[in-house]
């Protein structure tokens, strides 16, 4: 199966700091590709390039085989790449419906009297949330009253509804409890089955192994290669993330990709 988005040899420099030193990554339809790495490994920088927030210093981004340079997050969204950020997913003071449609509000009427079609917006929001397993008290319920896992789910539902082909989840489980995490992981599974490619960023190996089809580990701005499901275990991933003493050993097992 060909990749929806392929990142080839991406580098990113911030002044004297080399955040990424040649990282390759690809995401296919209907898979969950986990991007693992410790804090400061460059995960966030990498996905910000993928979602159009940063421009890469070097390397290529291919969307369905075509080299593409995103000028803004909006470009990436148009190309079908949606990102759900860990803490920036939702605005707590705004209602679920207003959050859901933020930036893409449906309108009705004629200019200059175009209005935000709240009726339609509310209806679709409630339906989509129910599909994801969240029963809202009402579409005007403030996001602040939702739990962390539910907020992630609203953001995921939003991305899916707006036709995401690739869904990037930035540490969606890092601040969640056990049950909340289970909900988010089952949401990932549900989304994957719809044929969407999920990029799941985490530093929790167990969460990654629970849903991941492939695993890529970042360490100090470099990738240690991509492994298929079943070829690695938790201990191996953990060691790669830590970049510890067993690096030499792992280098052999991964086929010398470093």
């Amino acid at each position, binding site marked *: 199966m060909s990749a929806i988005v392929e990142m080839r040899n991406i580098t990113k420099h911030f002044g004297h700091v080399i955040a990424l030193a040649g990282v390759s990554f690809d995401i296919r339809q209907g898979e969950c590709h986990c991007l693992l790495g410790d804090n400061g490994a460059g995960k966030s920088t990498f996905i910000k390039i993928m979602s159009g927030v940063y421009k890469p210093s070097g390397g290529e981004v291919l969307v369905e085989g075509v080299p593409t340079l995103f000028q803004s997050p909006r470009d990436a969204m148009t190309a079908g790449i949606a990102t759900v950020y860990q803490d920036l997913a939702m605005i707590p*003071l705004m209602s679920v419906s207003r959050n859901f449609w933020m930036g893409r509000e449906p309108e009705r009427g004629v200019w200059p009297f175009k209005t935000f079609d709240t009726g339609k917006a509310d209806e679709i929001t409630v339906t989509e949330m129910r599909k994801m397993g969240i029963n809202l008290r009402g579409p005007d319920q403030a996001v602040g009253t939702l739990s962390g896992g539910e907020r992630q789910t609203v953001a995921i539902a939003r991305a899916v509804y707006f036709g995401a082909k690739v869904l990037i989840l930035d540490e969606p489980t890092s601040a969640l409890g056990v049950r909340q995490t289970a909900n988010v992981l089952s949401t990932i599974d549900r989304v994957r089955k719809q044929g969407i490619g999920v990029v799941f960023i985490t530093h929790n190996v167990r969460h990654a192994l629970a849903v991941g089809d492939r695993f890529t580990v970042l360490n100090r701005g470099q990738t240690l290669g991509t492994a298929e499901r079943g070829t690695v275990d938790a201990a191996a991933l953990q060691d790669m993330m830590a970049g510890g003493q067993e690096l030499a050993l792992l280098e052999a097992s991964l086929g010398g990709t470093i």
Partner: protein
Amino acid sequence: MTDVIPDALKDERIKPVSPLRRALIRPELGGICGTILVFLLFAVVAGDSGMFAAEGVMNWTVVSAQFMVIAVGACLLMIAGEFDLSTGSMIGFSGVMIAILSVHIGVPLWLAIVMTFVFCILLGGVNGWLVIRTGLPSFIVTLAFLYILRGLTIWSSIYFTRQTIIGGVAEKAATDWLAPLFGGKILGGLFTWMGEMGWIATFTRGNRAGQPVIDGIPMLVVWAIVLVVFGHWLLTRTKFGNWIFAAGGDALAARYVGVPVNRVKILMFMFSAFCACVFATCQVMEFGSAAADRGLLKEFEAIICVVIGGALLTGGYGSVIGAALGAVIFGVVQQGLFFANAESSLFRVFLGVILLTAVIMNTYIRRIITGER
């Protein structure tokens, strides 16, 4: 559906919400309660002072409308997450600019008004642009403009006319086509008719004997109503309104989903400047003169109206209707104390108490919205 929903996702822990609590999280609630309270208070202490006769009503309506005009701009800007402390100086500046251009340079009054509006809205844009570009708090950037504009106003007034009050605008306004839009009055016929019917008082002596004590609704009041309706519609019924909430609620989150946050914020700075200009132009037309010290402290009064109206100082939450009610409270209290023959300095005490109460209540309301943490 139910077969795919894990138990954990069922909201078994969400309590039903009482209607009272639901009403409480409407931003206007504080404003509504405050307005009722203030009216009741003055009905008791100043009920027989003429405060609620036609003339008295017009008196506090005009004062409230003044606050309303600038409060609408401040409200939308605050919801978008920024402040404009240069509003008061902008009022002084635009008034003096109109007067200098029309009286001392000889530009036709309508052109002077248009030029002033364009220039001041651009200045508002500069305010916004600086805030966005530098990433500094708007508090500091607009504080700088508070001083810059006030200084320029006084300097230019003295440079061109050797005085700080510039008269002669009234003569120009008499023959101008645009001036009545700011200085005129409407519905004069209605009030004459109401006077004839004996519903409102009429003059009994002098050369206006028989005419009603009110000869129409000042355009300032019309502007206030139009701006409030427009602001409320924009905020709650349009896509752009959603962007205003989003920009103030969390600029980064909004930016990541494609909301043009910078454009929204700069436009709101420009709108705030526009409101200041409306205020100034109406005032210049009413007095027939401009003065370099006009608009002093107006920026804070606008912010107070907005906060009393339930908006959060941190942005992302608020209501134009609330801000308008805040302006009514402000106007009624200020004029009411005058009617009640209270010591005028007490006004500030009263204002401080209202402000503090409103802010404390808003903090509580925010805790309810964001799930009481």
